[in-house]
């Protein structure tokens, strides 16, 4: 009885929130699928929106691992590389594989790598773990350059984006690639949003905030950490596919270097750890070269801006 009364008391608040959310979602859809494709210039889409979407998605993925689950990773761009090269090879070697399936398989390959390189997290913490994720960074870059198979024996390891199409509809134009990108990002972000607000997301936070207490109350700590590595890498891997296929179109292993990993890390630090919205805001603001720096992250954003004009 008391419980029902409580629920009833909470109901009106939920309605107001729901309406607000609905309005926000509608506005987002109108902008993403109506305004941008109709009015945005080719330059805006190619040079700003496409990298923005891919890196934001990578930041969402890293945030899941570092912001929510508390496991610092410095190897994000390695997982992007695995996704990109994975998608390239699935597309190349399996005749007629639909694009969506290719991307999911690429994400799963990245997730597999993520779990392997996440295994040390079961024993290592903090800096020791962070340094061990660098192993992933260097190893993947080396392997992709060294073994020609990954790039179909291209002498410098470069891969080119295949013809992009969904259900026979070509997406090779700038607008097409934008639509592919924005849809992927919105779907995955929505799923992550649901995840972090579920019991699994709360397990992530519990492991981050107090691992000992989490273990004692029965959070499966090891499984939770590996799950965080897997899902995070899955998303970062798909972000890598977007980066390679929709933005750059041709990419070499060196494009996924340590600097890219740090860039993604800076995005989530400045945007706020454990904040999904932050991943987008920062990317957007750093692109329009506005400085946006809450609290402790000022040095990082300063670094980004200094770097931006020194390179």
């Amino acid at each position: 009885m008391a419980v029902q009364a409580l629920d009833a008391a909470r109901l009106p608040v939920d309605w107001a929130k729901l309406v607000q959310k609905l309005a926000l979602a509608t506005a987002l859809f109108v902008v993403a699928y109506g305004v941008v494709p109709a009015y945005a210039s080719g330059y805006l889409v190619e040079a700003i929106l496409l990298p923005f979407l891919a890196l934001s998605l990578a930041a969402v993925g890293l945030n899941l691992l570092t912001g929510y689950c508390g496991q610092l990773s410095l190897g994000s761009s390695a997982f992007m590389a695995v996704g990109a090269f994975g998608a390239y090879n699935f597309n190349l070697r399996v005749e007629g594989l639909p694009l969506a399936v290719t991307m999911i398989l690429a994400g799963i390959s990245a997730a597999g790598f993520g779990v392997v390189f996440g295994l040390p997290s079961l024993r290592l913490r903090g800096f020791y773990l962070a340094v061990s994720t660098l192993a992933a960074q260097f190893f993947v870059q080396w392997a992709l350059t060294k073994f020609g198979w990954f790039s179909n024996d291209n002498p410098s390891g470069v891969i080119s984006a295949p013809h992009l199409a969904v259900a026979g509809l070509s997406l090779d134009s700038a607008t097409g690639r934008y639509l592919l990108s924005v849809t992927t990002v919105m779907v995955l972000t929505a799923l992550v949003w649901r995840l972090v607000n579920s019991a699994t997301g709360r397990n992530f936070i519990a492991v981050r905030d107090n691992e000992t207490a989490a273990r004692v109350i029965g959070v499966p700590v090891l499984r939770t950490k590996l799950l965080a590595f897997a899902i995070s890498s899955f998303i970062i891997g798909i972000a890598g596919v977007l980066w390679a296929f929709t933005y750059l179109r041709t990419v070499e292993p060196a494009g996924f270097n340590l600097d890219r990993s740090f860039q993604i890390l800076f995005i989530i630090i400045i945007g706020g750890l454990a904040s999904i919205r932050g991943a987008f805001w920062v990317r957007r603001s750093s692109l329009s070269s506005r400085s946006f720096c809450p609290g402790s992250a000022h040095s990082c954003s300063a670094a980004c801006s200094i770097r931006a004009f020194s390179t």
Partner: protein
Amino acid sequence: MSYYDFLFVIEVLVGGLLSGVMYSLVAIGFVLIYKTSGVLNFAQGSMVLFAALTFVSLVERGIPFALSLLITFAVMVALGFTIERTVLRPLVNRSPMTLFMATLGLSYIIEGAAQLIWGTQVHGLDLGIDDTPFEVGGILISSFDLLAAAIAAAMVAGLSAFFYWTRIGLAFRAVADDQFAALAVGLRLPRIWGTVWTAAGFVALVAGLLWGARLGVRFSLSLIVLKALPVLVLGAFDSILGAIVGGLIIGASEKLAEVYLGPFVGGGIEGWFAYALALVVLLVRPSGLFGQKTVERV
């Protein structure tokens, strides 16, 4: 294995150990700061670059060697002091991760500043050290490497003496042991941190000169931080001895792996081999070879 093969192994090993000393040189700068303030200072690599670049630019402008050295030292002290004041002190009591990320940002700032001040061209750095290899019992040894090792040893000895026999050194060790207790008995933490950053600046200077003379002063010099990290992980972040032994192990095994393992996998493994090795050690000893195993208080 023939006698010459054996000699070759020894030669590779000695070369590896000596280059390991060079890694240790960078790693020691990390340890100094980590021990006293719990910060993993990613900017140590950029400090090395900054020191080398400042020194070489001064020399190229016709300033005498000794004076350049002195000025560079003063600049490094000022830099270390400024970093402590402007970046780390406002962030005191933040989580180690926040501090680490702040130094990560800092490394880009220092590099950017170095580029703005000194430009981006590569400089040669001649310390006047003869680098003709000499032969000992059939093995060729680089005299430059040997000298670098000697300088590193002298520096470690000097730092040890400083920290063991001076008052401020005693305070340093107290802080490393227990920050709160040190604060409670009235040690002035900010001054100690200032000193440690100064010391780290000095270490960066020495490392910068030796590495700069080895590779030329270029921007990739700051990447030696990536060589120092596996050394730190292997030896433990908080142990100077660990940094030295870790450097030797990494240097030697890296060279041996390059020669004997490299050909089988297509070479180029020096980029990740040290990390893989460090990882294997970590899985057996999660806080490094020389790390203290702490009992978790609950």
